[in-house]
């Protein structure tokens, strides 16, 4: 059986997720032995643009018409399209200000010429094309990537936690930064899977993995307001990583 062909692409993002893939050190050779990477801009100069792909891994959000066109082209040539990282899955950091008037924003940042730029409100991949699998994380977890490859190669889909960060935080028996120290920890509404990496280091969760499967944002915000956090500040924090999921 021939090896499945794979392409790895970046739209507007930081390429951090592609870096994670390159950083799979010990496993990278195993992965490369199993798949045929045809298109990976970041790692190779010889790319086979346009060939059909079994799996396309796409990082970053859609921020321009060019991004959208590129994404549609990738979709066309791929059997399975995987959104890689919170930006691709949820719009991520890039979608932070999309509630604001786009034109005014561009003008604010670039002056009048900004109005002519190719820039559209940030969109997650699924808002533009059909996405078969999302791997959230900023950046993604190496293990999740490997699990995805392992499952996809078998024709299966991987399973990722839908429960919030708190669940894993408690499993690791961390002190609770929210309850014990009154810090703004987004653990209760953020998807787990990171093994509560930040609270483990006594740093509050900023929600980088996007919303958990089932969130109760109104109650979360009410609780924080009761603790004395200001609504404006909360709104900014909650918009950062998932415009739809958590902004009120």
């Amino acid at each position, binding site marked *: 059986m021939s090896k499945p062909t794979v392409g790895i692409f970046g739209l507007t993002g930081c390429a951090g997720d592609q870096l994670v893939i390159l950083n799979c050190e010990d*496993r990278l050779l*195993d*992965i490369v*032995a*199993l798949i045929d990477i045809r298109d990976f801009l970041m790692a190779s100069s010889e790319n086979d643009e346009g060939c059909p792909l079994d799996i396309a891994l796409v990082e970053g959000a859609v921020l321009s018409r060019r991004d959208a066109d590129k994404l549609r082209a990738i979709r066309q040539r791929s059997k399975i399209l995987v959104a890689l990282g919170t930006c691709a899955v949820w719009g991520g950091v890039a979608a932070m200000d999309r509630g604001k008037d786009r034109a005014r924003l561009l003008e604010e940042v670039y002056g009048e010429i900004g109005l002519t730029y190719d820039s559209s409100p940030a969109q997650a991949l699924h808002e533009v094309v059909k996405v078969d699998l999302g791997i959230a994380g900023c950046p993604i977890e190496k293990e999740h990537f*490997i*699990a995805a*490859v*392992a*499952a996809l*190669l*078998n024709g*299966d889909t991987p*399973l990722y936690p*839908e*429960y*919030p960060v*708190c*669940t894993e935080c*408690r*499993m*690791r*028996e*961390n*002190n*609770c930064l*929210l*309850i*014990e120290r009154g810090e703004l920890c987004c*653990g*209760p*509404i953020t998807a787990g899977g990171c093994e509560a990496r930040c609270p483990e280091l*006594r740093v509050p969760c900023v929600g980088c993995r996007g919303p*958990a*499967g*089932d*969130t*109760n944002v*109104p*109650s*979360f915000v009410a*609780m924080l307001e009761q603790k004395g956090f200001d609504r404006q500040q909360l709104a900014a924090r909650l918009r950062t990583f998932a415009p739809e999921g958590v902004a009120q």
Partner: protein
Amino acid sequence: MKILKLPKEKLDLFASVVQQFGELHAPVEQDGKYVFKRLMRWSDARLEYDRTILPPKKYFLPPRETLFRYRPGEGFVPHTEGLDQRIILFGVHACDVYAINILDRVFAGKYPDPYYQARRKHIAIIGIDCSPDKHCFCRSMRADFVDHGFDLFFYDTGDYYQALVGTALGDDMVLATGSLFEPVDGTDIDDYKRRSWNKRRAFQLEVEIRDLPEIFEMEYQSEIWEELGEKCLSCGSCSMVCPTCYCYDVADHVELGSRAGRRARSWDSCLFASHALVASGENFRGPRASRIKFRFYHKQRGFVAEYGRPSCVGCGRCISACPVGIDVVQVIDRLRRVQDVASR
């Protein structure tokens, strides 16, 4: 039951002798809270702790646990690593021992869980008496004393620990110390009774659990469940920290480039939307209100039908772990409160 006493100043001596029976674990401090951990030195032990973040359940039913390895050709091979590790849990409170006794029943029955059972067999428990704080209501849950489930249980009676010897292993521990332990006499018994009386009076929280199952049935449609559902974040903390929540999920983890892999279980919670979801998309407890109702219902009512008592032991952990302050004692109080019928 054999009852002896140990002069307090000899406790560290006892601890050092007892290590020959296994790796010593006890509550240690972690940023103002406590966790059960392997002791590096005896002086790290904090036997006057209030409660640990996670209950001792983590030793018997670890948060994540591999059950099998699978290789094509070989089949499912049970993962037994670490199951026979000898550990001594030093300083387990009565409610937590009680909770382990409850888990014992869940993981026994028609299909005993061999992983749990193996650990239970290899982990010794030395209990210690405690003083209730503002979240404790174990007395109301009839779990402020235990008469079995431990190897040794220490009561602080002033200058001594009075020790109940619960098992042959506990007796071996006592014997291994030579003559550290002394027989008890009448004054010791009086000391114990005084201590027991004082503890009883120290409880600040109280709930009445008799006829609670009936009240739960009557209040099944109560508006309180909707209110709690609006508040609950489904964060799962309460289930994780509860010494008697045992729900778990099972998933297979496949290895890269093969069908080989492992089957593992991990703690789960009935507060998650996926808990009662089936493939057709139907969710038997979809709304959050029905999930939180189920949690209380399972602990305070359903378990009674199955095992003759609530599974809650009143340790207070879920109260201090809930980000939005959902408090089991207040919930029970509210369910019990007589309401003006006209205003309903």
